């Protein structure tokens, strides 16, 4: 007998608390016009400025141990982990599930960092500094993993989990194939966890993530097409699951000018059209524009669905970008890069 299924009453209401909260948190993000001013400051001034913002606690706590660039790097990472952990802790039901599903990317990040660290023979205390325990794997568990002696020990610790199949691809020589497999696994798992549900929230998460995959693939295409890499190699590096997957994979290996012409007419074209010319020398500028487009996309979409996972996603991407921007500025200044070069890389939505 067919069962009449009514929509669950009051479902968007589950998102009211968390969206209200992230919208308030959004106002505390560093405004775009601050970045040029930060570029004129020296490192200690930037640290002092960050002390006036949401990074105060981390800067205060870590200032005994570190100073200068190190202090800012670790404080921003610690704050990122704390903020994301808070988001998954203060939400319930569907939002909590979707946020955790999204935050698994930090598990992937941490596993990659562990593998890279062990591969390069870095000490475990040094590796731990670059971990961001924002996902499902706790800080304690990651500490334990970092203390293991070899890559094989870390890989065997994941036996029986979903990561095992991706980590099995490690051939002892290079990490690129494992890292690609981990990325693919992340998106595959998200499709599996969310794609099956008929909920509106899950659908919106997938919609955003598909767009994100497209942007990531597009960046890969820009880099590799510019460098004239072989089409087959590019195809291997393209992450499946994007909305424009077929179209984008057809563009792999095209001559750069032709590639640019075929991008015209896509929604992201208007945000890069003025700088995307055949003779562009640095692709990083296009990357920054595309990332900014993704942030604007999340916030624009969240205007149509105010009570949904989208404002939370928008916030998480904005926050991630903010931390990346601060690190770019600080690291760039330390390395003595010219201001214009740093400015190109900073993403302002």
């Amino acid at each position, binding site marked *: 007998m067919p069962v009449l299924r009514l929509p669950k009453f009051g479902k968007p209401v589950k998102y*009211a608390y968390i969206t*209200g909260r992230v919208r308030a948190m959004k106002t505390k993000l560093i405004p775009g016009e601050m970045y040029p001013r930060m570029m004129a400051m020296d490192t200690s001034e930037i640290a002092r400025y960050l002390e006036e913002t949401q990074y105060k606690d981390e800067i205060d706590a870590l200032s005994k141990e570190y100073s200068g660039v190190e202090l800012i790097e670790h404080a921003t990472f610690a704050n990122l982990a704390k903020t994301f952990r808070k988001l998954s802790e203060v939400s319930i039901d569907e939002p909590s599930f979707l946020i955790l599903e999204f935050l698994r990317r930090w598990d992937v990040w941490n596993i990659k960092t562990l593998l890279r660290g062990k591969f390069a023979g870095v000490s475990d205390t040094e590796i731990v500094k670059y971990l961001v325990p924002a996902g499902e794997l706790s800080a304690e568990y990651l500490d334990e993993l970092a203390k293991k002696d070899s890559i094989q020990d870390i890989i065997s610790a994941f036996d029986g989990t979903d990561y095992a199949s991706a980590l099995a691809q490690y051939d002892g020589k290079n990490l690129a194939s494992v890292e690609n497999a981990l990325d693919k696994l992340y998106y595959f798992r998200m499709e599996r966890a969310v794609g099956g549900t008929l909920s509106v929230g899950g659908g919106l998460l997938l919609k955003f993530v598909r767009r994100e995959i497209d942007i990531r693939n597009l960046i890969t295409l820009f880099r590799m097409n510019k460098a004239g890499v072989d089409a087959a190699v590019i195809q291997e590096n393209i992450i499946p699951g994007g909305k424009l997957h077929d179209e984008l994979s057809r563009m792999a290996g095209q001559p750069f000018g032709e590639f640019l012409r075929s991008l015209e007419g896509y929604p992201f074209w208007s945000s890069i059209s003025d700088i995307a010319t055949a003779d562009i020398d640095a692709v990083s500028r296009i990357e920054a524009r595309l990332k900014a487009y993704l942030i604007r996309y999340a916030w624009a979409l969240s205007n149509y669905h105010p009570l949904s996972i989208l404002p939370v996603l928008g916030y998480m991407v904005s926050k991630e970008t903010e931390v990346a921007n601060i690190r770019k500025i600080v690291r760039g200044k330390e390395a003595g890069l010219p201001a214009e070069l740093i400015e190109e890389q900073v993403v302002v939505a």
Partner: protein
Amino acid sequence: MAIADAGVLYGLLAVGAGLATGLAGIGAGVGEQGIGAAVVGVVAEEPGFLGKGLFLMLLPETLIIFGLAVSLILMFAWTPFASLVAAP
């Protein structure tokens, strides 16, 4: 009209008055649940928002006033049957 019928009608009038306030209350409650949750979320981050938040949260409450006004009119002001009920 018989007095008993008038009594039934007056009773129905009272039920209608009750429904007017009651349903308005339920509607306002449904409206407020989301606003209330959102306001608590914002106040958790920014305590200064409490005053504005409370004002926004109480907006749907005005609907109850409409319901209450209809109830009061039904019970005390609009009395086409009052003469019948009062009649011996």
